[in-house]
């Protein structure tokens, strides 16, 4: 077993453990932290595959941005674990079916290699920048799916804003930063000239 294989199994063991802890941890914040660990380890495994752009992108996007917001939200929630677990046995059949479907799908992918279906392999020659290759593919061969995905993301972004935006309520106390900037001391402070009082 060479060193790379050793690293792979090491990372995989951490990944599987972290993924298991995500669904078994009692504390939701701990679950999120294990999810972050899982993403980070996943980035490590991709780096082993020499997909350095994807490896760094998952850490940059998921660990660096998405999970920060996730953690932000989960920390503020007051989650009662016992109430969450109440419906466990009712939901178990549905969850089990979904789990089985996923196991079946993963099995198909793994078995297909034995059934002589050529699997996709990283075919980037050494010395060629991974990032440049992905960029070139994204804007030539896959430009329509790429543009479509970005439009879907834009729609999602606007939808999120539209769902939470309640309009500007005139009765709410709202300060206009533009007007705030132009405030002068004269507008706020009145200096009075008073005669000195003498007894």
């Amino acid at each position: 077993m060479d060193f790379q294989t050793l690293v792979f199994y090491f990372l995989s063991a951490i990944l599987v453990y972290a993924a298991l802890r995500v669904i078994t941890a009692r504390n939701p914040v701990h679950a999120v932290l294990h999810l972050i660990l899982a993403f980070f380890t996943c980035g490590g495994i991709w780096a082993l595959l020499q997909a350095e752009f994807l490896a760094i992108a998952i850490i940059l996007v998921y660990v660096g941005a998405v999970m920060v917001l996730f953690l932000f939200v989960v920390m503020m929630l007051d989650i009662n674990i016992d109430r969450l677990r109440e419906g466990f046995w009712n939901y178990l059949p549905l969850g089990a079916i979904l789990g089985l479907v996923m196991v079946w799908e993963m099995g198909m992918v793994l078995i297909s290699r034995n059934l002589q279906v050529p699997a996709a392999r990283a075919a980037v020659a050494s010395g060629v920048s991974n990032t440049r290759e992905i960029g070139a593919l994204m804007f030539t061969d896959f430009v329509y799916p790429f543009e479509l995905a970005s439009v879907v993301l834009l729609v999602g972004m606007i939808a999120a804003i539209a769902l939470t935006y309640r309009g500007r309520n005139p009765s709410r106390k709202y300060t206009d930063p533009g007007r705030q900037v132009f405030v002068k001391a004269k507008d706020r402070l009145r200096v009075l000239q008073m005669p000195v009082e003498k007894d």
Partner: protein
Amino acid sequence: MDALTSFGSELFGVAWPAVWTLVRIVAIVLPLLLGVAYLTLAERKIIGFMQVRIGPNRVGPLGLIQPIADGLKLLFKEIIVPGSASKGIYIIAPMLAFAPALAAWAVVPFTDTLVLANIDASLLYIMAISSLGVYGIILSGWASNSKYAFLGAMRSAAQMVSYELAMGFALICVLMVSSSLNLVTIVQAQQSGMFAGYGLNFLSWNWLPLLPMFVVYLIAGMAELNRAPFDVAEGESEIVAGFHVEYSGMAFALFFLAEYANMILVATLTSILFLGGWSSPVGFLPDGIFWLFAKMAAVLFLYLWSRATFPRYRYDQVMRLGWKVLLPICLIWLIVVGVWMMSPLNIWK
């Protein structure tokens, strides 16, 4: 260098590459920690000068041993864990803050050849690693189980996520004009240009054609570092000391080290991305690592200067500046640079 390599491989055999890498890591980290120590002294001296005070002058000549004394004091202090804290995360959080500050240095180049790991996507790597620093702050705030610490953590998380966008767009403009993610190539791309032909190299650096991005990067960098005037996460007058209010001894010192190591990192990146790195400002002087250090010192002085000059922003002003001022500027300038590069006036060929 070749003699050293052959001697080392004789002595250590197959373990030589690992030993050599370790030696180089130590050669980067030790000066960095020393730089952090003396940056704290420089900060106190400079702010003292600006406020017409003397600053520390008791420990050693001119107070030069002050940072060592501070470090020793913190090292021997007891680390107190609050009774209701989440103990494991409370201990890990300072390490999570400090580790990214060191890990980012793996790809920072000092000259054309002097770099620990010259990887293709080094700019991406630095963006990814420096975006992890926020976890130390959030987790310390949550694990302390204290209101002030939690408020500080929440503020810090929101602030860092908002300013990362502006920072990212500034970096995208830089990588567009140098058409590379490699920091060495980015510096080399700045060494040629119309003004460099006249011997005025400093006008060919990225700061001039990308001036708005340079300003955005300086401001966003200051905000990412949680430095004054953007230090709402600490906000002594409102939330005591923010996220590290419950920390003492070495655990507190790690947050401190992380902040200053990050300051030096952002100063280095500013020098490399916008100020030409190790290239000399005029044609007749040789390039060299000392130019990089001089530029870093200038940027660091700017940070200390702004701390002594500006009052702290209110939290809503910080958010407004990030989302409504810096982000639109970035989006517009991104398009301007794109159009500029496609037009016949393109200066980055």
